[in-house]
């Protein structure tokens, strides 16, 4: 029987998301050491290390340095497998040396990559490039990123994307097989390929964030984790020397600003809160500050990207002391530029919201006419709910109600339906009143973009 060492049982040694973060880090580094063709082995080794912790720590307490413990166990398992298998193509010694180095660097207990060293961060970046390889479908890129770099489980990914674990599992198997067949290696793409490959990585991160942002109920916890995971990945890419580019900082800024408002997006009644209804004291000030710093780092070079403009818009909201003091003219200006850069119906819709604030609802309605005629957004509930708000502000409540009902018929999620029911009641009770817009309108819906 072992003596109880109460110093070792301190749960505080396990920071939030320790396992998820370490899983992503260890899989990336082990895959780089063993070679991409052995990615399954790398994942098994990491899973085994976590399982060992699960079976052991309840009895023997959490070690003082949980991360270092996990790395040691993973390293030993990997060495074990190295011994047992034959297909290392003469690289056994090199691998053994790399595994030793891997375990000797003390990861410390900090959750950030700074504690783990630049090499691990770079391994995760390399893994991101592999996961976002152009040969894979966007769905596969997203799933593979979440699983390997993100440290999410198959079931969690399935829940987040309203899919089945078996579907996700198959998708992962096929994606990995595809990459193995192509002989993909864990490396940063060369300078010719880098810009395009980086753009793919940024799009995947953006998509990940949007998945998390757009959900409001049910699996809220996983969805919030997606947002924070996306922010973490954006910052990982922004902080890596090779990809330390203004547009990456811009994306990180955008996600930080949006993420800062996550807590306030659902009202106390469980219904999505519109911008003017949100309790701004719930906005995460620390994240907003981080967003501002990223925006400053994005303000270099001479390439203006959609991420820059979207970040500016998000910053305008976050930095406004109140909804009345929001710089709508600035925002409209950004939307004008954004539309020029990236013509999309959803951006045009969001722009119309800004037009209403600057020039009044009539002009905004005019701006929407083209969209309505175009049919591109005919099945997009936000088009109708936005138009409804404009009509309501002009006292045209019967038409507003008709549009709200149309929006409701198109809404699949319960929170959206409840929101619209509430709006219908409001419009009927108070025919002329400032409507204000759903916060959703600020976040460009990437799914809609794919329809371009």
């Amino acid at each position, binding site marked *: 029987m072992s003596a*109880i060492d109460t110093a070792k049982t301190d749960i505080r040694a396990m920071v939030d*998301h320790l396992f998820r973060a370490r899983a992503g880090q260890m899989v990336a580094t082990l895959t780089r050491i063993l070679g991409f063709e052995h990615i399954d082995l790398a994942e098994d080794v990491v899973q085994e290390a976590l399982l060992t912790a699960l079976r052991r720590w309840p009895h023997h307490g959490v070690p003082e340095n949980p991360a270092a413990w996990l790395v040691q166990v993973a390293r030993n398992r990997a060495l074990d497998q190295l011994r047992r298998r034959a297909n290392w193509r003469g690289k056994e010694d090199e691998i053994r040396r790399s595994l030793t180095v891997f375990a000797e660097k003390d990861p410390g207990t900090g959750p950030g990559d700074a504690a783990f060293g630049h090499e691990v961060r770079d391994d995760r970046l390399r893994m991101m490039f592999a996961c976002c390889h152009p040969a894979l479908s966007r769905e596969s890129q997203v799933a593979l990123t979440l699983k390997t770099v993100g440290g*999410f489980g198959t079931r969690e990914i399935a829940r987040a994307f309203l899919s089945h674990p078996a579907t996700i599992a198959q998708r992962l198997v096929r994606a990995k097989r595809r990459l193995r067949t192509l002989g993909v290696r864990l490396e940063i793409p060369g300078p010719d390929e880098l810009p395009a490959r980086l753009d793919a990585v940024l799009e995947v991160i953006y998509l990940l964030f949007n998945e998390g942002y757009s959900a409001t109920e049910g699996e809220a916890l996983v969805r919030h984790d997606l947002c924070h995971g996306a922010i973490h990945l954006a910052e990982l890419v922004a902080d890596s020397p090779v990809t330390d580019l203004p547009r990456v900082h811009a994306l990180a800024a955008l996600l930080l600003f949006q993420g800062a408002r996550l807590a306030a997006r659902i009202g106390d009644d469980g219904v999505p809160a519109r911008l003017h209804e949100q309790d701004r004291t719930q906005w995460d000030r620390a994240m907003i500050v981080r967003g501002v710093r990223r925006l400053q780092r994005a303000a270099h070079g001479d390439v203006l990207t959609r991420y820059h403009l979207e970040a500016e818009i998000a910053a305008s909201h976050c930095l406004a002391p109140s909804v009345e003091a929001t710089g709508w003219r600035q925002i409209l200006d950004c939307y004008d530029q954004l539309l020029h850069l990236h013509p999309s119906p959803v951006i045009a819709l969001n722009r119309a919201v800004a037009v209403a604030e600057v020039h009044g609802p009539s002009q905004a309605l005019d701006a929407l006419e083209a969209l309505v005629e175009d049919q591109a957004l005919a099945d997009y509930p936000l088009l109708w709910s936005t138009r409804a708000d404009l009509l309501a502000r002009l006292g045209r409540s019967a038409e507003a109600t008709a549009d709200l009902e149309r929006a409701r018929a198109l809404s699949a999620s319960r929170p959206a339906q409840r929101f619209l029911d509430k709006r219908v009641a409001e419009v009927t009770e108070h025919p002329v009143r400032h409507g204000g817009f759903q916060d959703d309108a600020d976040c460009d819906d990437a799914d809609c973009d794919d329809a371009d």
Partner: protein
Amino acid sequence: MGQFLLLLHELPDDFTEASPSEMQGIIQEYVAWRNGLDQRGKLVGSNKLADDGGRILMKGADAIRVTDGPYAEAKEVIGGYFLIEAADYDDAESMARTCPHLTYGHRIEVRAIDTAYEP
């Protein structure tokens, strides 16, 4: 007051499908439960048993027979134990009831240490 052994039975496949986040959550629940016992002065000892079936010795007709313990697929094994202080079975049971093992593992066997003839 007496001592009771909580034997944690589990199947080898328990937890294997859990995600990293889920595993951390499970560990935190176990450790919190255990810390709770410890803070109340109820925890005497705890150990995880090694991942093998151990050995079973039995006297045969003319020799001692030794076989491998039950560490095979789908066979329940004792993964570890907690030795606790409790007033009686009801008390021990009430402590065992809150153990996360009932959610995540298989079953808990509660056995009293025999103190019948203590002076």
